[in-house]
């Protein structure tokens, strides 16, 4: 994987996720499977938040952490972040299928493909974003739970929300490339 930034990657475009808007239609899953970097496997997660009490669903893409826990705990040096800040799916020649990344990711993103003994995850549809296009999921989401565009655009669309990319998991603070939409004035999201 190239270490330097890709010149065709548009740094002004960002990912904005608002799980509260997810209606569980799974259009993003179908679109994700079309992404060529995944080999026709959907990498996005759509699941019920707490099915016993609510029909609310949540959607999760890779948050592309500044200091990715998945890459740090990988014993095979298989996960790399490129110059655009995109954390890539495991290098297929190196991944030994140990699942360290699956268990260490604070957002629960990487998937272990058991038969192939390989970790796979969302890589921001690199085949598309590296040439200035939007990720597949964001192009099909009908409810605005997934949006890929500029800060200016999201400000106009969601005037009462602010994008947040700082998360607290217990004592751990995680900064990400992908944003989650929070009430106006929020600067972080404390999970635990």
């Amino acid at each position, binding site marked *: 994987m190239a270490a330097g930034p890709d010149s065709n990657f548009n740094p002004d475009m960002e990912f904005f996720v608002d799980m509260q808007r997810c209606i569980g239609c799974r259009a993003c899953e179908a679109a994700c499977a079309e992404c060529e970097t995944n080999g026709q496997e959907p990498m996005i997660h759509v699941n019920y938040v*707490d099915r016993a009490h609510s029909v609310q669903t949540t959607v999760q893409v890779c948050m592309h952490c500044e200091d990715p826990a998945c890459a740090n705990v990988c014993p095979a040096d298989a996960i790399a972040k490129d110059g655009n800040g995109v954390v890539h799916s495991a290098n297929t020649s190196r991944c030994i299928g140990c699942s360290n990344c699956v268990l260490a990711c604070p957002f629960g993103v990487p998937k272990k493909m058991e038969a192939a003994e390989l970790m796979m995850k969302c890589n921001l549809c690199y085949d598309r974003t590296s040439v200035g296009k939007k990720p597949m999921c964001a192009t099909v989401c009908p409810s605005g739970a997934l949006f890929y565009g500029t800060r200016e655009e999201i400000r106009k669309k969601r005037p009462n929300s602010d994008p947040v990319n700082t998360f607290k998991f217990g004592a751990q603070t995680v900064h990400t490339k992908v944003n989650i939409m929070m009430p106006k004035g929020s600067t972080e999201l404390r999970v*635990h």
Partner: protein
Amino acid sequence: MFKIFSDLNRKALLNASIAMVLVIVLVYVGSRDLQNFDAALIAYLFGTVFAVFGIMYRYSVWVQRPPTRLYWRRTWKFVFSKRFFPYLGFVITQFVKNILFQRFIYPRGKSRWIGHFLLATGCMLAFAVTIPLTFGWIHFTLLPGTTDIYVAHVFGFAVSKFELGGLIAFNAFHILNWCSLFVIIGAILMMRRRLTNGGLIATQSFQDDWMPLVLLLAISVTGLGLTFDYSFMQGKTFEFMSVTHAITVILFLVWIPFGKFFHIFQRPAQLGTNVYRKEGERLGMAVCPHTGEAFATQLHVNDLKKVTRELDFNFDMEGGGSHLDYSPEGKRAALAKAQFAAREKEGSFFG
């Protein structure tokens, strides 16, 4: 100017130096004080010794990383314990299935597996032939008093004889040609993938993905060129063929520690992780507080807590427990619930 020396990893440097000296000693002893050493292969020997040094250096640095070190220690501790014996059959099966036949690649794509299997088999067979030849561990002589019986010597001991012109001789003298054909077909299949798969086109690089294939192809084509030259061209281009072949092979050997070929030495770690998981299942599973279902072995979760702390991550929660106690689904739900709670507190679910 000398910063490179102060940046060297001392432990790795020591291991690499020991490995290098050991190889030189083994060459000396195995070739019976160099009397069976083929001086024409000296350049290949230098390349191999450098490769051994580089591979051992990188391997030693690699196993010093906290997550790798943990698996490394766990594996060897387990291998030398009495609990290992029930897993011996499992390890052998896994070795045949996943190392010799790379069966785990098949679910990733049929032609991908065929391509990789041909590349790997061609390379492994070629290593098995050329390394003992380069080290002077194997050599051939004519049986005294005959002109058509060859004797194969291993470490200076005669181990078998075969008739020149026979099937064994034909295959023994052409085995590297068969390896070359395997590698050429494999490399073409892999190159085809890299030219047609949109995902690969977006993420590949010349250095990591194309150069290894180009090198393997160059080695195989120039190798076949040697046979072609003496079979059909009366040796007219032998010098050119032998020099270009030597250059490509030595480039390959020198490149092993730095590039994609290093995965050959990393791959056996997959056996260790499979045993680790099986033994972990025996010891007990971790249950997610959110889903109420088992999601990983407790051994793995506990080890990961230690490793993340070593790497300066701290997922410990205020009220006790850790975020790592949650399954991936539990973690996603926790994030969604936290966002929901923030929206609820604000009094508006959509903004």
